[in-house]
């Protein structure tokens, strides 16, 4: 016990006692440090404050009754780091000698050594008599090995694009909502946007989701390939924007009249705007082609069914995509 106390006391004395400067050799490496005893005191105080802040971290972490842990933990560790930083900077400014020195930049080049290396490499190849052929061999071996090393990466995924055209829509498939309840034509109101999926299909698949809206029949301008794609004024389009593939979740029913008199489907990512009355044609924004349309029918029970597949590929375009594609 007495020994421990002695050790403790001598430790305290060593820590607190001002160190007597040991005898120094005459030539100093560094210029004399600026003599700011106050600064040293400040730096030491900052270090202890940093220690206190850091010590708060486990307290906040373990004491269950402390609320808002994220904030207090952040304060504790953040302030501890900042006080430590402050201590170091105070020491750097006022306790540790700061010199401004001049050095020569390294030489721009080492001509002798450059010459040596070049000659070394040149001379090492003197023994070859058919140098061209050897180089060809090297290139062949390296190239073939490189190709062989890359081939396993082909397993990452399919390289073909046929899958990109696929959608789960088929003739006669019922439209269901997110909870798999079939959509009834009578429940589709004007000025509202409905999202529907093919019954039994994977809802996450790109070709699954469609937007369904009801428009006055007189306002429809469906012609050409999409003629008659509506069912009693109800139209359905792929929900994925043909620009960058985001879901089209905004429906501007004519609330903006007279400035924007027509209903419009809008993608919130880059504001491509499509006209649901006109076969999903683009009226504003960066989309390059119209929305693929799904032909609809109303069955005997008043439920909505697909009369086939979309009239074009869903989602964003790619090199060589066929804009119009007959339904399978």
């Amino acid at each position, binding site marked *: 016990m007495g020994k421990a106390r002695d050790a403790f006391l001598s430790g305290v004395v060593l820590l607190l006692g001002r160190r007597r400067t040991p005898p120094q050799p005459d030539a100093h490496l560094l210029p004399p440090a600026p003599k700011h005893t106050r600064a040293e005191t400040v730096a030491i105080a900052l270090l202890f404050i940093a220690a206190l802040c850091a010590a708060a971290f486990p307290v906040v972490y373990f004491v269950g009754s402390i609320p808002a842990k994220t904030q207090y933990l952040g304060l504790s560790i953040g302030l501890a780091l900042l006080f430590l930083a402050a201590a170091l900077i105070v020491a750097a400014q006022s306790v540790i000698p700061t010199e401004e020195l001049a*050095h020569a930049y390294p030489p721009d080049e080492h001509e002798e050594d450059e010459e040596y290396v070049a000659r070394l490499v040149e001379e090492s190849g003197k023994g070859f008599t058919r140098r061209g052929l050897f180089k060809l061999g090297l290139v062949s071996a390296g190239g073939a090995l490189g190709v062989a090393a890359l081939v396993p990466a082909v397993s990452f995924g399919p390289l073909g694009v046929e899958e990109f055209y696929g959608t789960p829509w088929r003739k006669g498939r019922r439209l269901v909502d997110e909870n798999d309840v079939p959509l009834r034509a009578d429940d589709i109101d004007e000025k509202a946007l409905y999202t529907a999926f093919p019954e039994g299909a994977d809802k996450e698949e790109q070709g699954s989701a469609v937007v369904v809206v009801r428009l006055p029949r007189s306002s429809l301008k469906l012609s050409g390939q999409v003629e008659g794609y509506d069912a009693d004024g109800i139209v359905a389009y792929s929900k994925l924007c043909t620009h960058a593939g985001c879901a089209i979740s905004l429906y501007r029913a004519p609330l903006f009249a007279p400035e924007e008199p027509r209903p419009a489907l809008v993608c919130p990512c880059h504001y491509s705007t499509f006209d649901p009355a006109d076969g999903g044609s683009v009226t504003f924004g*960066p989309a390059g082609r119209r929305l693929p349309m799904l032909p609809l029918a109303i069955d005997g029970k008043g439920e909505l069914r697909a009369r086939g597949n979309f009239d074009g590929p869903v989602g964003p375009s790619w090199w060589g995509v066929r804009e119009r594609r007959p339904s399978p």
Partner: protein
Amino acid sequence: MIRKVVCYVDTRTGTAPFLRKALRYLFPDHWSFLLGEIALYAFIVLVATGVYLTFFFVDSRQDVVYHGPYAPLQGQHMSEAYRSVLDISMTVKAGLLIRQTHHWAANVFLAAVILHLFRVFFTGAYRKPRELTWLIGVTMLMLALLEAYIGYSMVDDLMSGMGLVIGYAVGLSIPFVGANLMGWLFHGPFPGGAVLIPRLYIAHVLIFPVLIAVLLTLHLVLVALRHHSQFRGRRQTERTVIGIPLYPGQTPRSLGLMLSVAGVLFLLGGLVQINPIWLWGPFHTYISTNGAQPDWYLGWLIGGLRLMPGFDVTIGHYTLIPGPFWGGALFPLVVFGFLYFWPYVERKLTGDVAFHNLLDRPRDNPRRTGIGVGMVTWVFLVFVAGSSDRVQVLFGLSYTGQIWFYRVAVLVLPVVAGLVAAWVCRQLVRGEQIEEDRRRAETEGRLELASRFDQA
């Protein structure tokens, strides 16, 4: 004690001569030289916090139902990945602090990298013999942008998914190989296969960080081998570098800066909310939300996508180059192409093949400054255009009107800004010359007066 350690190290490694040189390596002093250092320290915080997060993140798209403490999401279907990040934010003690600090560090990292790039560009620090340092730096910026994007994509919240599908569409638009490439990377068309999130994960925590760390090391080694560049001064010349030695002068200062950066990041992580993913909800391909914005460093790309009028290159019923290519792929390609080739373009224009250890002030080179300001204006305008939907909500300015304004402005204003910047540079230099002449004339006049006085 110190002698013993030094002796041990030297006898085991023989590095005392190297240490002696390295400890006296000089750091020229200027505030703008600290920007790169800040980036380095933010990267260290990113690695440290990132390692912690890997112990909790689950890289799986497996569908699960949420039963955690956050009531609004209870009973919802989501991926295991998203649930694991909810758990990091809600149930792991100190998890939210580390996650938010990580996200803040990513923001500060990129901001520091970009400001550092501006500093290097506008002072001509990339000139011979430091071109390789510049090329590596530009490459790191590109990797860092991708790394950050992948980082918030793999969380699989609604914002992640919306960002990811846009990236997918941009990839898809690449001529000839886009669809094959994306199908290959995602394992089929979006949303891809079960392997997608594990792939994003390994890219985010291994491939990209290792690439960045290797390039970072190379970047610093190259800086040290050629020594820092410096501004011209009374003692600073092309042959002589003036600075504070690594030890003892620079070490506590740099450590202080590192701890300050880390301290500020942890304060931000603890006190300032960032990317509250529990508010976004899980991603489904058929869901999106209005008013979504990417993290700021990708704002220039969403701006590019929004500004570009719908323009697909088509032949008959076949699309060749889809619209997202222009704003999402070609635009950043042009910007990065400019950054990569600029040192060589400038050399061609000026015929300057000399060694440069002294930096230019921006005004010293009106052409470079003008072109740089033009480029920055161009990218910045596109960046601002990316937030025009929020401007409409906040200030009621018509979205379509704003887009048309920006479509014209991005063609006109960069040229104007570049010319104005170059003119300002020339005026500043001229002003300095006038000042100089005046001082010389005054001195001469005073001398002459004095000599006349003497004669009289």
